[in-house]
């Protein structure tokens, strides 16, 4: 069980992917700081392997995958944000 000091915020996010726009460059998978994504085994209509969510509870909504993607195929949304009051 994790113990947080008082006054700290806990932020969770959710990632969505449009698989027909992806071109399989692999930048979002290797630059995620919390290891949320992995390469899938299916391919889309153009023949590229797109990313798939592996650990959805780890996402902290930093927004790096959304800004690094060259094809506008992935974005993240804030799910919850709460303040820890006591240990």
């Amino acid at each position, binding site marked *: 069980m994790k113990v947080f000091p008082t006054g700290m915020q806990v932020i969770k996010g959710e990632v*969505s992917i449009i698989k027909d726009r992806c071109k399989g*460059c692999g930048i979002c998978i290797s630059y995620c700081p919390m290891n949320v994504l992995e390469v899938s085994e299916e391919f889309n209509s153009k023949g590229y392997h797109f990313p798939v969510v592996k650990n959805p509870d780890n996402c902290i909504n930093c927004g*790096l995958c959304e800004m690094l993607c*060259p094809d*506008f195929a992935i974005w993240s949304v804030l799910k919850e944000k709460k303040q820890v009051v006591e240990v």
Partner: protein
Amino acid sequence: MVQLRGSYPFENFLQAGSIPSVWCPGCGIGTVINTFIHAAERSNVSSNDICVVSGIGCTGKVAYCVKFNSFQTIYRSCIRCASHIKLKNPNWRVVVFLSDADFMISGADDFVGIVKKGIDILVIYINNYIYYLYIKGKNLTKTPFMGVTVDKSIESPFNIPHLAESCGFRYIARWTPLHVRRLSYSMTDSLQKPGPSLIEVISPCLMYYSSEGLVGTSLNRMDYFYDNSIIKKGERTENLDLRFKDKIIVGEFKDGT
């Protein structure tokens, strides 16, 4: 069936017929457009007042993919058209996406005349180390890279931030597609304040530099930027040459009034 949370947040800034785009997988031009849309949303400039102008080549397709008031121009007339557009509509904010084709072969006299005529535009210079369209990569203009070309010859480098400082630009910076947040804050700062500015983005072409251990594929390309770039704020522009085996110096070099 995977559920999507809403739609893509900036869908109203993209042309519907241009996605998926024409560039290679992992090209730096796509990242620069994504960063520009985030910067335009954060600034206090209305999206009806932004104008995008581009030239020829791979960089020339930028005006086709975004939904601001955009124009695509013909050979050797990119900066001249942008100057006329700014003089006719003084309350617009004009952004020019340049490449080697519109600046080094012909058009350098228009670039020098920006500050002399008092025109207020933002120049984003995407440097992909090659000019292939008309001369098939031979060594006519290898702007700032002292390395090997298609026919294995070497040419001396050129220093664009130094040229811009001697002309009198207000804001000069250089970044790579790896530094997304700093590039976005540079663009927001230049959109809001008056005065001509220059931002150079180093992004080598994937088709010609992805072999022989030079830069690698798209994933290795980001590792290449991570290992070989160093941030030095306020460095003098005489020391900003690009050489093959040295580090790339990035940062903000001039931020004046």
